[in-house]
């Protein structure tokens, strides 16, 4: 037993010294180097912040609350769009609370957008994994066109055009799902409104 403790403490000194060296290399020099390299990519490593008239209005990668009727809505968020509380709902696949939430959302979206309940796409009915999903499906964007046009006094064709312009296909042609960035789309809507008045 004494031998074990002696051995451990001798190794412990070496361990402590190695840990100190590694903390400097891996915990200070390494992240600082990556940060320095990142400076060569402009503002991209800051989170693709979007500026309008010199004011930062958000990140292209972080979803926002667009529940107002003039906006294209984001997906439901389990974290209430709190940038410091990314979270999924963690509701299980047979949890009655989740099943009810889905049915409630289906009815609400169908009523608001004036579409048949069966035409409401899945992403409009479910919360994302991050609670900050910046994207919606092109289908969800399309069923919102009529309302957004009406609420902003824009023609349906103009708004439909904006959706078409902002719909992104699969990355490299095959990776992931088609999507629309909601912040980008709403910025375009706002520009169109400002241009029209």
């Amino acid at each position, binding site marked *: 037993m004494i031998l074990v403790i002696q051995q*451990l*403490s001798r*190794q*412990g000194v*070496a*361990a402590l*010294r*190695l*840990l100190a*060296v*590694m*903390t400097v290399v*891996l*915990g*200070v020099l390494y*992240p600082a180097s*990556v*940060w320095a390299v*990142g400076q060569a990519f402009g503002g*991209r*490593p*800051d*989170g693709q912040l979007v500026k*309008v008239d010199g004011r930062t*209005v*958000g*990140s292209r*990668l972080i979803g*926002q*609350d*667009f529940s*107002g009727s003039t*906006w294209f809505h984001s997906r439901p968020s389990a974290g209430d*769009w709190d*940038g*410091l509380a*990314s*979270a*999924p*709902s*963690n*509701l*299980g*696949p*047979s*949890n009655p609370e*989740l099943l009810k939430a*889905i049915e409630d959302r289906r009815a609400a979206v169908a009523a608001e957008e004036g579409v048949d309940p069966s035409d409401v796409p*899945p992403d409009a*009915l*479910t919360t994302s*994994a*991050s609670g*900050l999903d910046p994207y919606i499906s092109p289908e969800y964007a399309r069923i919102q066109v009529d309302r957004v046009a009406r609420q902003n006094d824009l023609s349906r064709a103009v708004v439909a055009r904006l959706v078409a312009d902002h719909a992104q296909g699969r990355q490299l042609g*095959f*990776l*992931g*799902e088609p999507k629309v960035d909601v*912040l980008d789309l709403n*910025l375009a809507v706002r520009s169109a409104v400002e241009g029209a008045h």
Partner: protein
Amino acid sequence: MTDTLSGLLTIAALLALLALAYVPLGDHMARVLTSTRHTRLERGIYRVVGVDPDAEMSPRGYVMGVLAFSAVSIALLMAILMGQAALPWDRGLPGMPWDMALNTAVSFVTNTNWQSYAGESTLGFAAQAGGLAVQNFLSAAVGLAVAVAVIRGFTRARSSTIGSFWVDLVRGVLRILLPLALVGAVVLLVLGVVQSFTDTTVQTLAGGTQTVPGGPVASQEVIKQLGTNGGGFFNANSAHPFENPSALSNLFAIFLLLVIPVSLTRTLGTLLGDRRQGYTVLGAMAFLWGTALAVTTWSEAGGHGQSAVAAGSAMEGKETQLGTWASSLFAVSTTGTSTGAVNASHDSMTPLGGGTALVHMMLGEVSPGGVGTGLYGILVVAILAVFVAGLMVGRTPELLGKKIGAREMTYVALYTLVTPALVLVGVGLAVALPSTGDAMGNPGGHGFSEVVYAFTSAANNNGSAFGGLTVTSTFFQLSLAAAMLLGRLVPIVLVLLLAGSLARQRKVPTTAGTLATNTPLFAGLVVGVVVLVSALTYFPTLALGPIAEALS
């Protein structure tokens, strides 16, 4: 293009990337871990540390090295987490309470990366980069070191030593993990992962306020995957757009978390001088991974569950741009590698999808397992397989020229039992406590599955969660910390003693009666043993949780 074609092409792209890296990385690791030369930088480090790099260690000495290094690492990380307010870039956040700090320190040192805290609201940047990310490197390097020590058990004869822990550790970091991490981090920067030291508060378009978090994410994200750690910078882990901004970064993340465990089978084949042995091990791992992927994807992409049917697709807890296919691929790879990063909510997966994630961990993290841990894990299974085969034909079992005697089988049996014992005792204790019912985030069998998932994840050092379970009570912090610590260190001690026992033996010549272990038949035997052992151990528990839910 249909989702199915897109998903299949994604899997094909992943396999192609892994195939490209397999030989160069596997052989590089073999060279690094057997080289007799030290670089100038390494010599400097050994001098500072005070160790002789050419002095080899006995199995006992190697064990002491791992234990001492783990103890010191836990102590320092706990101090950093509890005292983070004194560090720069603390973001005005207080230190962690002691039980959460202990749980987190154990979690990161054991390569588990179970998280009972939410990164963006709990930790400053210095604690993340200087504490957690450091252990992301070191815990992976410890796994690698133990794996190479075990390989030496097979390649050496009449040897009382199994290498130097310090040398294996330093080389693993400086020649394998750090160079790959630097390259990978730059790729992540290009793909849009964040690397900053400021949070930004913005006025949103709709007139609200939102804090857009910053942080040294890219540098931590890359080693989180590469080292099969899995602890997210943010609470949402790889679902967070700042950790995983696109479908391409998602593919790259899955590649990173698989590449070392997969390529280590090449390292094994190269070091044994029998490449087919490496392919055989890889074949067994790939079969298990592929089966899990097929089942999960069928259930997730097919929408086989009540909520998926209600919503028209299993999109609850998934990101729009990733969808069901890429989320399934990630879930299977993260649970098969002991990574535990998630790009979707496992708690909200379809019953069969979430159940497969759980079962995949219960297989013991060998498909293909964590960095190093997967390799020594499957070698232990291989010993069990030759033992079973030996019983059937009545011969003394041998593996790779070493006799498997009573001593070796004792280590193997204990190794096989320790993790299931931790899981089942932990679950038993938890469900006996009245407070556990309130901690569950879902009613019925699914709530029970959350508890089973937590202890399975902890004891197997995975780190993913059915996140609905509230695990911040002192009971869960301490019991899960114990499961992580014992689930990591007891198997390591056993496997190092096993390596020592094998290294001491002479090599037995191969005869006509020797069971060939580099054939598809043997790969099948290994798969059979993996499945049989887990099924016998866990079936009653699974019947109460995911099986009941899937049938309801």
